[in-house]
Structures are given as C-alpha cells and as structure tokens.
C-alpha cells in the first residue's frame, strides 16, 4: 500500500495541502467522520481510496437529518467560495500572508473533491430512491467541455490569421503578434486546467496549448450544443434538499482539480518571489517547505537540499507526470 500523496504530488508545499484532511468531518458538520491522511489517501494500485472507506464516508455524510445535509451543502459552498476568493485576491502587501491565506483555503477545500467521488453517487442514489428521475445537477457546460469548445474556437481564430497549428508549433514563440496574443490569452483564461501536480505541464503554458492545437487539428468536431435544461421545480421538501446538496457537491467535485491548480498559479506563484526575498531564501526553495513551516520557521538549508535531492531522485513520479526538474526555477517567477 503506497501513500497516495507520494504518487500523486511531488512538491512538499503541495503535499502539505493534504495535511489536515482530518478536519474535514467537523468542517462538514459530521464530527464522527474519520478522514485520516494515511487511510483516505492510500493507493492500492487501483483505487484512490478503499471501497469500505468511501461507502462509510458516503453513509456518514448522506444518511443524516435533512437539516444536517443542508448545512453540509452550505459548508461545501463556503469552502469553494473561500478558495476562489483567496486565489483571486491580489496581495495585501505581505506576500507571505497572502500565500498562507491561499494555503489555508486549499486545506479547507481539498477533502471535498476527494470525498465528492463517493458522496455524489450516494446523494444521487438517495434522490432516485425518493422518486427523482431527472438529470443530475452538474455544472453545464462541464469545465472539460468549456475547455474543449474554447480550444476549438482558438484553432478557428488562428486559422483566420492564415496560420495552421503545425506552422504555429514549428515556429513558436516566433509567430506574428496576433497569433501569439490569441494563444497567450487562451492560456491565461484557462489557468488551472491541468494535472493535479503543480509542477506538471498544463494549459496555463502557451507552448502546451500550441501542442494541443496540433493534436486536435483535423479531428471530428463533435461539439454538443449549449442547451442547458431548466432546473426542476422541486418545492422545498426532502427531494429539493437532496437535489441542492448534490448540486453543491457536484460543483465542487467537477471543478475541484481546476480550483486546486489555479490556486497555485494565480494565488501563490506570483507571491513566491517576494516571499523568498522576505525570508532570505531562494524562490524555488519555498516549493520544498510545508505551509506550516512557512507560518513558523523554515527548515535548515541542509534539510531543504535533502528534500530537493529526494524530489529529483523520484524518477517514477517525474516520469509519470512529465515533470521537467529543470523547469523548477521557472515555476517560481512572476508571470
């Protein structure tokens, strides 16, 4: 049994996001819910979490009083909103406190998309048991569909400039300014779309966008229409409460990965350079500390060097996620 954190994310700063999963129960109004870092984030090679853990979790969260489920849905929305607000807030003049604010919001949020995998299925099952037969209230369009539609539109816009995806890829970044601005604007608009590891390449990088423009070139354009079904009129009873709770969990779960990645690139990354100057260390060193250490005292230079060495030596992680360690310094510059 491996610890999922070691497989899923590699930077100590990001690993420490998962450090307070145990707070999830009280946060969601279910104090008896045990969300243990060692158990909940274990990887047996197939599952993110053990089946038994997930079914117990879903039962603990869903088979409660209607009022409790309603409050829980409110907690999910609050944690999501808090992370979005902390991410988008510009610095208050103190880069370190800004980073810590985003870190605190991340830690309050992270259990929700993890638990959401089980809770959403359980809530839908209870809705069906209660007689609801309509579609689940997930975000429409989904984040993935929005990304895809925008990418197709970007390809069309580039084509109107007379540049094919292959020509853009062959000469990037030495392309005409209109083309460069189109690609860079797309990347800026889609910060957060990408793999869980912050250090793995994602859609915020223009070169990554260009590579995918090439990938979709000539593909079947099977884009669905944007028709969104109207919300059902469910009144104010038990079914309405379950439906609203499911909507809250689906929103957070469907957008979870994007929100967590965006929190780093928008909320943390721009502050790292100034925070490092404030702390008297190299900017990239701050990727190898935990949020708790940022709030108290940094590890010794020797300890930081050891952590960096262990990270670089973890070839399995680096290869699995396509991480280029030579890009670490570029990861902590102001965009």
């Amino acid at each position: 049994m491996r610890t999922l954190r070691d497989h899923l994310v590699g930077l100590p700063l990001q690993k420490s996001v998962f450090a307070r999963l145990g707070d999830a129960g009280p946060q969601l109004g279910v104090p008896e819910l045990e969300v243990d870092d060692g158990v909940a984030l274990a990887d047996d090679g197939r599952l993110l979490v053990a089946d038994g853990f997930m079914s117990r979790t879903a039962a603990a969260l869903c088979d409660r009083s209607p009022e409790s489920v309603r409050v829980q849905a409110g907690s999910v929305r609050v944690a999501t909103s808090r992370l979005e607000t902390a991410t988008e807030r510009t610095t208050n003049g103190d880069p370190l406190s800004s980073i810590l604010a985003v870190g605190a919001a991340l830690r309050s949020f992270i259990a929700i998309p993890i638990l959401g995998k089980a809770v959403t299925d359980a809530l839908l099952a209870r809705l069906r048991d209660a007689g609801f037969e309509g579609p689940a209230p997930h975000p429409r369009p989904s984040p993935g569909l929005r990304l895809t539609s925008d990418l197709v539109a970007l390809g069309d816009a580039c084509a109107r400039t007379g540049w094919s995806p292959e020509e853009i890829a062959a000469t990037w970044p030495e392309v005409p300014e209109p083309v460069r601005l189109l690609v860079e604007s797309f990347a800026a608009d889609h910060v957060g779309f990408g793999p869980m590891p912050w250090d793995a390449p994602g859609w915020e990088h223009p070169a990554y966008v260009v590579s995918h423009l090439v990938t979709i070139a000539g593909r079947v354009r099977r884009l669905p229409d944007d028709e969104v079904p109207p919300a059902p009129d469910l009144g104010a009873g038990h079914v309405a409460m379950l439906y609203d709770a499911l909507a809250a969990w689906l929103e957070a779960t469907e957008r979870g990965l994007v929100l967590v990645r965006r929190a780093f690139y928008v909320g943390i990354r721009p502050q790292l350079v100034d925070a490092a100057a404030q702390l008297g260390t190299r900017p990239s060193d701050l990727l190898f500390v935990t949020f708790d250490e940022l709030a108290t005292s940094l590890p010794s230079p020797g300890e930081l060097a050891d952590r960096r060495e262990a990270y670089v030596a973890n070839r399995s992680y680096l290869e699995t996620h396509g991480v280029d360690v030579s890009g670490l310094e570029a990861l902590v510059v102001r965009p």
Partner: protein
Amino acid sequence: MMTLSGIGASPGRAAGPPLIVGDEGEGAATAGAVLVGRVIHPHQAPLFLSIAGVVTEDGGALQHAAILAREFGVPAVVGVADAVTRLATARVIRLDGTTGVVTFEV
C-alpha cells in the same frame, strides 16, 4: 473474445482500438479509438473530440468521464476492474454504454 463488465454511464455502442491514458497524461490522439484509463480528468476533455467510446476503472455515473461522455454523446462504461491492464493489448474493444458490457479481442 473476452468480456468485462461495468456500469453503463453513457448510452450507445462503440468499437475501436484502445487509447490508454494515464491518470494525468494526455495520451496521443487516435481518431476512432476507445479511451481507456483509470480515471479521466477535465483537462483531458479535448480527447473526446475524436474518440469512439470510453472505458474507465473508476466507477460512478457522476465522475468526470461519465459526465463528459454524455455531453459529447460518446458511449461509456465505467467501473471496469483492471480495465487498463486487461485492455492494453486489445486489438479491438467493443462496448455497450447501456448495458455496461465490454468485449475485446487480443
């Protein structure tokens, strides 16, 4: 011909060679392929532009792969145990997104 079973998550039938993607990887685009992975994430959605179907190990009608498949009108079966390992060498995969049955030839 071998058979696997899972949960039908997006209706319809599809057939094609496997396109295996990692948990975080994008995979190479193959038009008409059946996307196979442990789990599919939103940032991998552009793959849905050209695939014929989806099979995932992760189960649940509300997971990302199932939602995307329904949006794109692509047949999908989720919750298929060991799908990545068992389908990696398949020549052709056939899936029924209504019944949750996956058959394949090696």
